[in-house]
């Protein structure tokens, strides 16, 4: 079982939860049908895809929502990497969903709900990408702590997507301290193995 697939497992559970909720499917469907804005109009430039970014699954709005959410979810040092586009979360998520069709539709819906959902479903009255960081944190915190299972699943799915995108990037090793797949001078593989006094 690879780490990517563990994240997909979480996304799958979010997808299943959304599939059981007609009103959430509706929000996703409205966005897909163009009844809610999906382009970049009204999206702050800091979250919008760069010129020439070719998206396979996500709309520009979905890209922006995903990027904005990730920058709050991964923490301040990670957010700086995302805002500098050293880690392009939106592009990674788009490519990932393109090759994982099982979860692509429900996760695109989840992002649409996060962007356009308003009170009483989400603690906001405006699109997620238009909020400042503190207000975005309030929305995410409310989802995480909600007594409603579907809101917690929505949070878990978006969070998994963000973690998947961010921690798959080699640049994120600056945050986690992960030395890379084949060891490094600083942390050789031998450092992970038991010593003469350990049990076995």
């Amino acid at each position, binding site marked *: 079982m690879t780490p990517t697939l563990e994240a997909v497992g979480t996304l*799958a559970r979010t997808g*299943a939860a959304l599939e059981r909720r007609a009103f959430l499917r509706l929000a996703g469907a409205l966005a897909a049908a163009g009844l809610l804005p999906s382009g970049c109009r009204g999206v702050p430039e800091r979250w919008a895809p760069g010129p020439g970014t070719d998206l396979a699954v996500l709309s520009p709005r979905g890209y922006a929502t995903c990027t904005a959410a990730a920058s709050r979810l991964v923490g301040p040092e990670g957010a700086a990497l995302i805002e500098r586009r050293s880690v392009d979360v939106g592009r990674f998520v788009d490519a990932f969903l393109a090759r994982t069709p099982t979860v692509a539709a429900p996760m695109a819906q989840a992002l649409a709900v996060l962007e356009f959902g308003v009170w009483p479903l989400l603690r906001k009255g405006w699109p997620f990408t238009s909020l400042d960081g503190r207000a975005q944190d309030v929305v995410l915190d409310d989802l995480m702590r909600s007594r409603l*299972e579907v809101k917690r699943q929505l949070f878990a799915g978006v969070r998994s997507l963000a973690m998947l995108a961010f921690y798959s990037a080699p640049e994120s090793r600056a945050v986690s301290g992960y030395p890379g797949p084949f060891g490094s001078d600083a942390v050789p593989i031998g450092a*992970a193995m038991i010593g003469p006094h350990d049990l*076995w």
Partner: protein
Amino acid sequence: MTSPSRLEADAVVIGTGAGGGPTAAVLAERGLRVVVLEAGPYLRTDDFTGDEGAMTARLYRMSLSRASGMALYAGECVGGSTVINDALCFRPPGEILAEWRGRHGLSGLTDAALAPFVDRAWRDVHAEPTDRAHASRNAERLLRGARRLGWSGSATPRNVIGCANLGLCNLGCPSGAKQSTLVTYVPRAERAGARVIANARAERVGIDGGRARGVDAVTIDPATRRVTARFRVEAPLVCLAAGALGTPVLLQRSGVAAGGGLQVHSSVHVTARFAEAIHGYYGPTMSYAVDELADVNGRTGPGVMIESVSALPLPTATALPGFGAEHETRMRALAHYARALVVLRDRTRGRVAADGTVAYALEPGDVERLRAGMAAAARAYLAAGAAEVLLPVLASRPLRTDGDCAKFAARPLAPSELALLYAVHLFGGACMAGRDADGVCDERGACFGVRGLYVVDAAGLPGNTGVNPQITIMANALRIAEGAAAEARAT
């Protein structure tokens, strides 16, 4: 690839994993002309880069049970799931064989009858004990906790030669140490003359007059997975090893009733933080298992195995609670985390439909057993000195004391609260049985009512095994293949 529209052979084998690999080798070495079809790509050791995203996309297939949100995974490449498993080797437990004899009428599946094939598979894939040179600190933390609690557990045998402790078993072993069927049975089959066609998906078995006549198949573009050509393999012997997600589908598309009896090992993970650095991202992905709570091999627990597993950045990030600065602070301690899988022998049964849809709704009793397993894993880590243990339960708090574990073990847990639920050990869907009313094939693996058609993979097993299943699947495939080869030569 360019493929002729029609091939002739004595036998066609669908799949190259733990079932198909041994079958192809036996049939070819017994002198049959064998064609092997594999839906996934034919990657070699040099192709395994350790790049998680790329390797996952090339080696895996996924299905989703919409009823439960459970994700089901299998390998889809030459070597099948043996390329992406953790290399753990267990003999089939006696209790499981007894259950198959008693409940499913498989009277010939005795320990003594299967033992020679188990021994043979064990040798063929070089299963060997995991020694100190391949023991990680990550695994040692679980061992330490089990010892302090007086629990049963042991280092697990693995099928490797010269493991380099890279921790990349699930992404295709870049050192070639893991003895998957890709580097054992498949090359043996090829040396004996078998032709392996990768990126070729079987569509249906040709059945005429109650006899298998061959297989209709398509070739697939490995990049787009689109169909590029159609062809047929004419053969009087057809052996199905497309896995529990594939074999039942193929049978149903061929007009054979199948798909029932699907069973899995439901899995969740537990993460523990220690004061000292462990570097759990390196070392064998799995190498130690606690069987105190198992219900096989003489144990009488709830049916849970707790197995150490590597702690790479991404699953750890997913496992850690919260978000923002709090989460980032926790991630800086990555080197300090150990992880374990809680693997359940489910009682639940599900179904695979002809379109590949999976229905598998976890029974409440299985959820309770998973909860017991998570609580036990947490206790073991705390006994080993962990500062805290994190569970994949939405909005749950870290466990820091035995009291926390006891509270968690006693609280109600709904399946929907699990942040993650998945399975990689998949069984059934085309089960062996003593009579045709109860299954798809008899204990020789021969499909009821269709001569020359055999099920040789985990789809034929009548239930889950309670332990990592590759050796059981290989041994069963060797047993069936020897019988099928003898019958083919006689006719």
